[in-house]
């Protein structure tokens, strides 16, 4: 076997410490037929040309480049091999710069080390096999789960790029949580107005035709893998055609059945067929089957008869549907909810009617809410004093260890909105920490801080705080031994993953962290990707965040999808991956739980595990773990690694 050894001086970086002449001499006694060439800067344009020309002349069977870290230039030199007509995986790099020249004082020692390392590479490269990249046809379209800000943004960006998008939303409406709010931090912008352009584009814009919106729907099964997923989606009957309804509300007016409206904390009524709340999009009501009098066997078609748009808009016979869609990527944008504040003892949540959590209070403030924005105590009075308790369940090892990040900002927004309506209401913030990062968050805090009717009280543990009923029947907040009357209490509970996150996690094999949020591939470098290729994380399903970050992360997921899957272009599968030898696998299934990328599945027909090369990152974890030695890590086989060690130690 003819092996070419290329030694890069890297100017003086390597040459100062390692003598290429001494290495060349030592290489003369290596087994196998070798030739040795010294190049000054092999990564430079000249160097690469020289390298390629030499490969074409010498036609070696295997190539060693002793130079810098393979992290720097392995890809460069692999391309050179390919240009010279050699399989790029017949190259082995030896890092004699970072690992030897830069860290070894004595040139003689450095040279001796380099000789050993190169001999190791020689023993290894002899066993390296030519590997081929495989290609796979892919579907460039995407499934977005959740039509909140981040999901809508991702869907819109993809549609604008010409991709088809299936946008699945569990509720009857789009816009997520913020569309239910009145005004937003930090600029007190009207939430529905801010989101309206995006929602309008999505429903009726130039690219709306690329987006298939499914409300009241849930993904129930996903099979396949990156580039070729098949999703099954269960669509509950809305009984109202989104395409034909114009949102006039005549059906609701005619409907005889009444219930409490869950979208307004059950604080206002709605009809069986009605809108979630005023101004909601899509501008179409939905029928609650269990409330409709027909569920009791009564004949009624009041809504259908009232509809001015014809017979087909309201469909009382509509039933649940299961549809299948083929997509290449999945964007999770399932958002958040609030921690149940009744689990934090002493807060009176669920006990005292004038204790609200933040989402309930947002609806109270909202002009589309149950009181059209007029917030009064249950007794019907303007609260003369109001307490806002921060960090309810956040930064608390008994509940959620993390800071929810957004609560201080909306708490000071509440402060502003309350003062604007009732300037005489005394507001007390009870906080553990104040978290106001970034260039805008401080403004609402400054307003509150300057407000004579606002006071801030710090507490160290939620156990030091209690919401009780005073003798006169009013609420009082006791903190640090001091009692303060509060006609209304607003709690800021920890932000937690939305209901159903765990179910989706199990369905997609996307892991969750200890707090239940979807686990990102890397907290800094890849926070918008899950560990599963082709499944991306947008918005607060990854961690608590504000709308700005959610929108950005939504765009990031669109970016990943657009960059990774392109129409007419195949997906390249890296050949450095793991492969199970079926004839040696006894089916213990140990590898399956070990794989961080869920790339291994069990083939019960063959009673053996099998690695999906598309999903495999080639990390080698399963290779090390397989107790039967049935898994090979291509390009890092046990034989290659042992040979390299042997060569170094020889």
């Amino acid at each position: 076997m003819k092996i070419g050894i290329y030694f890069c001086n890297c100017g003086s970086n390597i040459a100062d410490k390692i003598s290429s002449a001494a290495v060349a001499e030592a290489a003369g006694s290596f087994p196998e037929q070798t030739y040795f060439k010294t190049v000054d800067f092999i990564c430079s344009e000249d160097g690469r040309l020289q390298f390629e020309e030499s490969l074409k002349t010498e036609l070696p069977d295997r190539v060693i480049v002793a130079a810098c870290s393979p992290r720097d230039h392995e890809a460069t030199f692999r391309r050179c091999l390919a240009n010279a007509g050699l399989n790029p995986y017949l190259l082995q790099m030896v890092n004699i710069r970072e690992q030897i020249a830069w860290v070894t004082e004595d040139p003689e020692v450095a040279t001796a080390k380099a000789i050993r390392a190169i001999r190791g590479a020689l023993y290894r490269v002899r066993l390296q096999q030519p590997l081929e990249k495989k290609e796979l046809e892919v579907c460039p379209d995407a499934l977005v789960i959740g039509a909140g800000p981040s999901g809508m943004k991702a869907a819109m960006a993809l549609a604008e790029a010409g991709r088809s998008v299936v946008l699945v939303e569990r509720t009857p409406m789009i816009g997520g949580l913020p569309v239910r709010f009145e005004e937003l931090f930090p600029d007190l912008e009207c939430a529905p107005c801010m989101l309206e352009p995006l929602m309008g584009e999505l429903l009726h814009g130039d690219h709306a035709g690329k987006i298939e919106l499914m409300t009241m729907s849930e993904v129930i099964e996903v099979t396949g893998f990156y580039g070729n997923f098949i999703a099954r989606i269960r669509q509950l009957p809305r009984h109202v055609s989104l395409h034909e309804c114009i949102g006039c509300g005549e059906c609701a007016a005619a409907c005889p059945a009444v219930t409490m409206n869950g979208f307004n904390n059950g604080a206002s009524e709605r009809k069986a067929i009605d809108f979630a709340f005023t101004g909601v999009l899509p501008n179409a009501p939905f029928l609650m089957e269990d409330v409709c009098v027909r569920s009791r066997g009564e004949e009624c078609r009041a809504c259908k008869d009232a509809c001015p748009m014809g017979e087909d808009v309201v469909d009382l016979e509509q039933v649940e549907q299961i549809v299948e869609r083929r997509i290449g990527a999945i964007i999770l944008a399932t958002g958040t909810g609030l921690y149940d504040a009744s689990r934090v003892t002493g807060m009176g949540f669920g006990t005292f009617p004038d204790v609200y959590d933040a989402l309930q209070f947002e609806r109270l403030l909202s002009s589309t809410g149950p009181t059209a924005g007029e917030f009064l105590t249950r007794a019907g009075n303007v609260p003369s004093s109001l307490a806002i308790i921060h960090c309810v369940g956040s930064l608390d090892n008994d509940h959620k260890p993390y800071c929810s990040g957004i609560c201080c900002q909306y708490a000071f927004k509440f402060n502003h909105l309350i003062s604007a309506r009732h300037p005489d209401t005394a507001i007390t913030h009870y906080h553990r920490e104040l978290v106001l990062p970034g260039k805008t968050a401080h403004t609402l805090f400054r307003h509150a801080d300057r407000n004579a009717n606002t006071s801030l009280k710090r507490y160290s543990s939620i156990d030091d705080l209690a919401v009780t009923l005073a003798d006169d029947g009013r609420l009082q907040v006791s903190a640090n031994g001091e009692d303060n009357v509060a006609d209304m209490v607003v709690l800021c509970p920890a932000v937690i993953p939305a209901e159903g996150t765990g179910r989706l996690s199990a369905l997609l094999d996307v892991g969750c962290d200890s707090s239940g949020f979807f686990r990102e591939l890397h907290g800094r470098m890849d926070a918008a990707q899950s560990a599963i290729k082709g499944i991306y994380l947008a918005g607060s399903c990854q961690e608590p965040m504000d709308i700005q970050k959610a929108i950005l992360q939504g765009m990031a997921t669109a970016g990943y999808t657009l960059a990774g899957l392109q129409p007419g272009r195949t997906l390249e599968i890296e050949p450095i991956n793991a492969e199970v030898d079926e004839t040696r696998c006894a089916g213990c299934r140990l590898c399956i739980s070990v794989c961080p990328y869920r790339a291994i599945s069990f083939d019960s027909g063959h009673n053996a595990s099998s690695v999906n090369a598309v999903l495999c990152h080639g990390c080698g974890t399963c290779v090390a773990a397989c107790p039967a030695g049935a898994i090979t890590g291509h390009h890092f086989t046990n034989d290659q690694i042992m040979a390299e060690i042997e060569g170094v130690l020889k």
Partner: protein
Amino acid sequence: MPDKPKLAIYWAASCGGCEIAVVNLHEKILDVDAALDLMFCPCLMDTKRKDIEALPDRAIAVTLFNGALRTEENLEMARLLRRKSQVMVAFGSCAKGGCIPALANFSTREDLFRSIYLDNPSVENPDAIIPCGTTSFPEGDIHLPALLGRVKHLAQEVDVDYYIPGCPPESHQIWNVIEVILSGDLPPKGSTIGCGTLTVCDDCDRTKEDKRIPAFRRNYEFYPDPKACLLEQGLLCMGIATRSGCGAPCTKANMPCSGCYGAPDGISDQGAKMVAALGSVMDIGDTVGLSEAEISGRVSAFLSTIPDYAGLFYKYTLASSTLGGKVGR
């Protein structure tokens, strides 16, 4: 009667279980006798060493050599039988990998003698006599074979043609091997025979699921579900890293595999492989936000439930393992 091929069965440092496995062939032992001339087996027969010494070299067709090499006598007999045999088989786990006797490789000869003859609470030895090569008595000298510095497996001293794993080898597999030998169609030299090519999981019909083990447990702590994988139930079942072929009698009896068939082909160190496998599925919980000390504490707490690393991971293979024990080679 024409000369039948000669068969020898020898025991070195062993327990006698391998001979019992041969006798467990039941009536098939008659077929063995019909085909082969069992002419040397100290456990069952009265042939002496001098009879073997008197044979021409390669006079024995097959020697099934069981037991590890603990004493100089074991070593001499191994060399003698190798010389006299055409085919030398390392028979059973002691001859193949050292097995239980090799666990003594964590102690020096001196320590072993001290434990057995001096510090042992049930031994009365006021003159502190310990065995040595030659001891003089008024009636004359007696000789005992000296202990080797460490226990070895057969192939560390003589050329071995085949290996038959098991502690002891399963009788049906012994019969398979005899059939192969009688057929004359021998596998390549150095093969491990009388076994399967997969792991015990292939023999074990328990239901296997994805593995995530929250804690190791021991047999006395609970009665395992007879249908579910024992490892998944926290029992340290070596079946995943053990060669198949035994038929999984242990897991069928609701006991974890202890690994007596050794590692499957391609695995050089059964214990190390098992450690790598277990390390991958030990579930120490979510470690996000934990300090290094806390993580290491969790791992240690997990590992502290394994009472005897060597006895678990290297019960059958310490002599042939990468590290080999504590005493020098």
